């Protein structure tokens, strides 16, 4: 962490630095996380870059509305608004048709070859390919589920934080997360899931 001699970032008694400096101090450390989120939200490297850049500029312009709290969650909320503004109506349309049908047969087949456990040396040799495969599977998840999954599993956000970023109740966060994991299991762990379905049938 940072040396103890350093004044707190947020606190009435400290001399206030300029907003440009304070913004950089608080927000730029989250650039990596912001880009990763944008990349998974957009599924496109160059759009992700645009969205992140736009998000940082928009965040700076509305920096005076930042009232403390986790800077990452504040930044992410702006980032996803940037993305949603960009896609606009398209996202609303997609939301209506969210279902298992959005996982295509081709994607499922591509996934079927993935080993479920990756502990042996042979499998770790195939690791690079596996990373691509898992990324592909995540990309195939419908948007609200993918977003919730990334925020929880990759960014290690609490349900409460995810709720504040995505603007939905915690119950919705929980059901989206459960649904995301269910779809993911179906794609990544086909055998086991198939077995469970047989038992249930």
């Amino acid at each position: 962490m940072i040396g103890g001699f350093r004044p707190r970032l947020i606190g009435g008694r400290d001399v206030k630095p300029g907003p440009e400096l304070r913004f950089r101090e608080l927000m730029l450390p989250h650039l990596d996380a912001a880009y990763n989120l944008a990349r998974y939200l957009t599924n496109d490297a160059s759009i992700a870059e645009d969205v992140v850049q736009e998000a940082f500029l928009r965040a700076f312009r509305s920096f005076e509305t930042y009232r403390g709290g986790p800077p990452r969650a504040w930044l992410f909320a702006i980032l996803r608004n940037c993305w949603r503004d960009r896609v606009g109506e398209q996202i609303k349309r997609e939301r209506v048709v969210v279902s298992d049908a959005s996982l295509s047969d081709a994607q499922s087949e591509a996934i079927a070859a993935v080993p479920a456990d990756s502990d042996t040396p042979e499998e770790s040799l195939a690791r690079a390919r596996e990373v691509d495969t898992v990324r592909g599977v995540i990309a195939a998840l419908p948007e609200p589920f993918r977003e919730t999954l990334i925020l929880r599993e990759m960014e290690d956000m609490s349900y409460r934080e995810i709720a504040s970023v995505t603007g939905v109740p915690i119950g919705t966060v929980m059901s989206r997360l459960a649904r995301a994991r269910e779809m993911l299991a179906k794609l990544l762990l086909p055998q086991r899931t198939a077995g469970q379905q047989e038992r249930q049938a």
Partner: protein
Amino acid sequence: MTCPDPMLLHALLDDELDAANVAMVEAHLRTCPDCAAEFEQLKHLHQIVADPALRHAVPEGLRDRIDAALPATQHTANPWPARLGWGAGGAIAAGLALTLAIPQQSATSGLEQQMVASHVRSLLADHLVDIPTSDRHVVKPWFNGKIDFSPPTPDLKAAGFPLVGGRLDYIGGRVVPAIVYRRNLHTINVFAWPAGTAPSGETMATDGYTLVHWRQGDLDFWAVSDVAGGDLDQFRTAFVTATR
């Protein structure tokens, strides 16, 4: 035995349960193979998705572009103000104020003062660029209709001077285009207007800023920055070469 809501398994995995529910669910997992298998699968999925190898790394240059697009905190060479304590930030702010005060008293001509002032203003206010883009095909048409001549806006990234964007400014009683470039974390403002009577090829330093002037075609160009004079000469060469 009744199995608990499957949501509780997720909540247990995500460390979102209170102690009483943790105890309840864990007790259940010890006695229910189905739920235990389900929980193992959730843990397995978590390991797969939380793998740092899945993260996408920030593309090269994005950090610099964002830093360049944000209003500058200072005009010194320190690339990451985040590493500074507030004390240092304050010192820089004080230094800036001093620099700002000087141009009015210096002996440089009115035009140069105005350009330095415009340069400093562009760094201080949230107004470095009106159109932030590294695409010269966007910057150039943006100036159309806003000014009555068309300055070249080459991207000099290959020479180490990436294009940041464009801005309109008011200098010498007229609206002029400012084409903004970056040299590492320094900003270079290029002003252009139809050629007047100023002699070509000057370099001058004023209050820590360097101004370089050149004439190309029927336009006069001025580049203003706090980069070293040699860098600014290099910039002029790159600009002239790219637009010849």
